[in-house]
């Protein structure tokens, strides 16, 4: 177990290093942020002074070396625009995105598993067919368009929920939470639903096919032969088996939830890292873009580690060995 964790940490460090190189070269080698930062009428001397102040006059590898040295100390450079540390900017906005993504994940799982079970237990019923048809639609609809429709129906037409912004938050454990503030959920609901839709469709399909498969297995027949009530056959014997693929896929998809929050946050003006990334891309604020990407890579590797641990907890046949699952 310790060996497993050590190996995984080493792998994470490797991936982060390679990604930092790729991201740095990619982001810094193309385009010239000076054009953006310096007044077009500025003299060459002024431009050079700004470049020197930001370190943009150095050769690329020197810039990277300095960047890496600083990064190891948690310094990913200052935002060109805000002048504050890029990492700090992102960390400030991360909780909003995490709250959104976790809420979306909960919606996807808490709605998706029961619906998928229903559709899997009664695949030929009207309800089962409707759920599966709905899940195909959930795959087809582009996230941003669903967001617009949600705003149109629930905010503009019905006037039930606000169309954007984060609304009131309450501090807890040093972070701001929408769900803890009175009425905060009203601001969270539509964006979370919007972000959840695709994953909801995914969870439904996974659960449905897993259930159908499990029902054909001998262990389910044997459980029935033992005289167990249906709720125990489905709720324990079937569910515990289908949780393995569901947890794996949903866990790995948590990263894409954070990535896709760019779309949802921009539609619902949710002040998270996705919106920050979009603004930074539009304004060529490279340190923020780099910091965002490195953070995403870090979150991705962290997630895959957590998923592996969960997988081992759920499936007794899996034993964590040095970096490999057997």
């Amino acid at each position, binding site marked *: 177990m310790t060996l497993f964790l050590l190996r995984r940490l080493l792998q994470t460090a490797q991936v982060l290093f390679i990604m930092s190189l790729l991201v740095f070269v990619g982001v810094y080698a193309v385009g010239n942020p000076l054009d953006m930062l310096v007044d077009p009428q500025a003299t060459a001397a002024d431009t050079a002074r700004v470049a020197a102040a930001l370190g943009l006059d150095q050769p690329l590898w020197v810039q990277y070396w300095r960047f890496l040295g600083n990064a190891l100390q948690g310094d990913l450079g200052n935002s060109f625009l805000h002048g504050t540390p890029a990492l700090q900017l992102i960390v400030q906005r991360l909780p909003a995105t995490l709250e959104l993504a976790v809420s979306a994940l909960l919606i996807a799982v808490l709605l998706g598993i029961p619906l998928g079970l229903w559709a899997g237990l009664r695949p030929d019923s009207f309800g089962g067919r409707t759920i599966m048809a709905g899940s195909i639609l959930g795959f087809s609809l582009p996230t941003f368009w669903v967001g617009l429709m949600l705003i149109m129906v629930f905010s503009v037409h019905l006037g039930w929920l606000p169309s954007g912004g984060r609304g009131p938050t309450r501090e807890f454990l040093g972070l701001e939470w929408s769900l803890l503030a009175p009425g905060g959920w009203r601001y969270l609901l539509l964006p979370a639903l919007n972000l959840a839709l695709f994953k909801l469709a995914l969870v439904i399909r996974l659960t449905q096919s897993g259930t159908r498969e499990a029902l054909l297995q001998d*262990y389910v027949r044997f459980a029935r032969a033992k005289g*167990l009530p249906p709720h125990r056959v489905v709720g324990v014997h079937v569910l515990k088996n289908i949780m393995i693929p569901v947890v794996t896929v949903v866990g790995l998809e948590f990263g894409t939830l954070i990535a896709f929050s760019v779309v949802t946050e921009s539609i619902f003006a949710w002040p998270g890292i996705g919106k920050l990334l979009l603004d930074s891309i539009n304004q060529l604020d490279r340190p923020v873009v780099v910091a965002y990407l490195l953070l995403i890579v870090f979150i991705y590797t962290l997630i895959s580690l957590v998923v592996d641990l969960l997988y081992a907890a759920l*499936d007794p046949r899996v034993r964590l060995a040095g970096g490999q699952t057997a």
Partner: protein
Amino acid sequence: MTSIPPSTTHGAEPLLRVRHLSTRFRNRDGEVTAVDDISFELAAGEVLGLVGESGCGKSMTGYSLIDLVDPPGYVAGGSVRLNGRELRGLPAKAWRALRGDRIAMIFQDPMLTLNPVLRIDTQMVEAVLAHRRISRAEAQTRALDALERVGIPAAAERLRSYPHQLSGGMRQRVAIAIALLNQPDLIIADEPTTALDVTIQAQILYEMQTLCREAGTGLIWITHDLSVVAGLADRVCVMYAGRIVEQGSTAQVLERPAHPYTRGLLDATPAAALARGHHRGEPLRQIPGSAPPLSALPAGCAFRPRCPRANESCLQVPPRVETADGQEALCWHPLSPGEALPEASTAIGVQS
């Protein structure tokens, strides 16, 4: 037309009494009969061997007795009485109370019968608690006893294992222990030793026989292997294409078969070949042709196209003929005791 099959227990109602049981499947092209009008009886403590080739409906017979036929299959008719109580038509809840308590079933592949993600104790305790209002600790004790009874060493440790940590033979013993947990009246064992090594197979067969005899449990042993039946069963039912074509005591059926199909099966065993003075390298004698699919059964006697004795009368469904006391065959012209099949066994094949 259908005479009542001979009872092994005279006077009193037997443990299990099956009459005219039929199970069908609905499919796109209509209906397929998987179990066709079968009748048999079983006394307490008795072992019944249900023999047939794969696809003959013997497993479906087992599922029909315990109400585990999955849609689109359904039990179409007949009667199943356990200790004098009619089971057909019972509501789902009553069936559930019976399953695992009065009637238990064991399946073929021990690798697949136990849930891979649940510990052995979880799977045993739930089987007790589904039928008994006792504490979890008591249920645990019962599980331990059951494991010890089926000869599992270090049972307490095994209880905390997951199925994948046990060997195939060990897993099948666990499945048997689960079946024995609530001291059922009847156990239906669907080829539970086929997937195991021959030595373990023999051990388990012997133990099952002893356990059932001691507890007075009726045992239906479903198998395709006549040699298993020979050492284990008191009575034998031979199935072909959904029907019981012959039944009787083990000695009667194996030594003086009346149905040409049973005769053919016996001739095809290596033991029979040796008795005939079989030479090495010579192929074993086989029944010509192969069993027809249930969806395309020939009219009348389903064995007719493969039978060397078939003639025009076999186009009609054959009658039950009592050939000896307690032995009957479903045949127009059963063999007399000791009679062999015509040599070269080429099917005359009365085409339908």
